[in-house]
């Protein structure tokens, strides 16, 4: 029983970073209608910027981390403006290829500039510190990740619910032509969604970096985040969050009780099953359009 609860806790802990990446992908998918496979590498490069600021330029961490997040926002906007917007009347397949190309370029850039070996991020919290709750261990880094994920969710919820920009983003996602008729500058909105999404993804990258930091660090979490988003129906933020935690928990239980080797494959088994049973995802609440 203690094992079981410990596994649940670990599942939730790892689910938080999946959730952040899943949210990041959903935000872009809803406006650009493309799964952004460069999401992980956009976070990667932002994380390395933080590393560079800390190690090479000796910035204090209270400056380096916010600056790297600012960099993430700018990066998202710039990529949208310089690369994706240039694609004229793109097909979905074309857009996917573009994001995969971006992913490889960004990854290559990081490997070339920083080398492929494991780096140690001077993160203020060590990944080995942990807190005991009764019989259970939780690392402080995991707690921080959970807190960041929850804050991001709350802020995004309030943003989309009550702010003018958030509402304009939803309007643009639902009907871009009608949004333009309202005077919404939809191209800027698109750029802003890339910026916000990049920010959310980068926060996941920073939180992963104390444990593993090399050019492939985002590959696995990004695919898991994508998997979580697919489970949630790809267009639902709560769906992606739910999918992420579910995935984290299933993965850990599977690793604990069945096979540790196949632990990370289980995510994809879950997705295949999911897509067979409910292709529109768990949270597809889009009602059918009246004709």
């Amino acid at each position, binding site marked *: 029983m203690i094992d079981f609860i410990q596994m649940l806790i670990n599942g939730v802990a790892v689910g938080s970073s999946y959730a952040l990446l899943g949210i990041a992908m959903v935000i872009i998918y809803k406006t650009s209608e493309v799964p952004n496979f460069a999401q992980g590498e956009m976070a990667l490069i932002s994380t390395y910027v933080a590393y560079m600021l800390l190690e090479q330029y000796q910035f204090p961490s209270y400056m380096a981390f916010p600056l790297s997040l600012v960099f993430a926002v700018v990066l998202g906007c710039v990529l949208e403006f310089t690369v994706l917007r240039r694609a004229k009347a793109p097909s979905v397949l074309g857009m996917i290829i573009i994001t995969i190309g971006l992913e490889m370029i960004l990854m290559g850039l990081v490997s070339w500039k920083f080398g492929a070996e494991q780096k140690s991020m001077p993160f203020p919290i060590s990944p080995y510190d942990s807190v005991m709750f009764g019989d259970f261990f939780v690392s402080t880094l995991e707690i921080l990740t959970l807190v960041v994920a929850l804050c991001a969710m709350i802020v995004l919820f309030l943003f989309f619910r009550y702010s003018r920009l958030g509402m304009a983003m939803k309007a643009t996602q639902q*009907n871009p032509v009608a949004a333009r008729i*309202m005077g919404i500058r939809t191209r800027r909105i698109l750029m802003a969604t890339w910026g916000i999404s990049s920010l959310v993804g980068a926060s996941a990258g920073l939180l992963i970096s104390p444990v593993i930091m090399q050019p492939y660090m985002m590959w696995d979490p990004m695919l898991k985040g994508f998997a979580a988003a697919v489970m949630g129906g790809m267009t639902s933020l709560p769906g992606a969050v739910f999918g992420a935690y579910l995935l984290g928990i299933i993965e850990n239980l599977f690793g604990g009780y069945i096979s540790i080797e196949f632990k990370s494959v289980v995510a994809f088994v879950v997705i295949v099953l999911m897509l067979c049973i409910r292709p529109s995802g768990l949270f597809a609440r889009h009602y059918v359009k009246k004709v």
Partner: protein
Amino acid sequence: MNPLLEIRNIETYYDLIYAIRGASLTVMEGSVTAILGNNGAGKSTILKTLMGLIEDQPDKGSILFEGQSIDGRDTEDIVRRGISYVPEGREVFEELSVRENLLMGAYVRRDRDGIRQDFERVYDYFPILANRTHQWAGTLSGGEQQMLAIGRALMSRPKLLCLDEPSLGLSPLLVKEIFRIITQINTEGVTILLVEQNARMALNIADMGLILENGRFVMKGSSQELLNDPNVKEFYLGMQDESSAKGYQRWKRKRRWR
């Protein structure tokens, strides 16, 4: 009265399809102007060209609003000058509430008090919407969505309101109601450009009417003139009192003179 909108000899292509073949139109400030025509005549295309929704169009010609050229500008800027557009088929934001749809209508404005007043005004015009403020727009009936689309267009306090077939798919009673409200909006100072299939209803509330065929205006005149014109009677109002083959020949002949 001054002209609020002047469209001069515009030509619009959809790639290779030549949809508007030189059309001119003047809308006087404070008036209701109706564009009539059969399916595929190009009525919606004229409004879309005006709103800047067709990329790189009009190909030729110019569009002046309050004396300033607006052709080739972005839709977002055209809206900010004071033109509102209710597209064919409503196009409400389906997963936003009625209230949020109206808020988006006021997106170009910053004056909170004015926006609040206009909420009241729209709910006065369409009391049904007031009962549905928190419902998703996609779950409204077609008629309610049409009311919402008109209300949303009013929220920007336009000088010119363009309506594309507001009567489409509505019950006769509701059509009457919508047209009554359009008249009321007009008397409160909004100039109206109306595209309609329902020629009789449109001419009843309009000051001026134009008839569009194959991308050209073939007839212009006051509503009275059009209502009394034998050809309009036969082909747009559906009143037949002579053999229609003959009438059609005459109509064609007449058109060739222009």
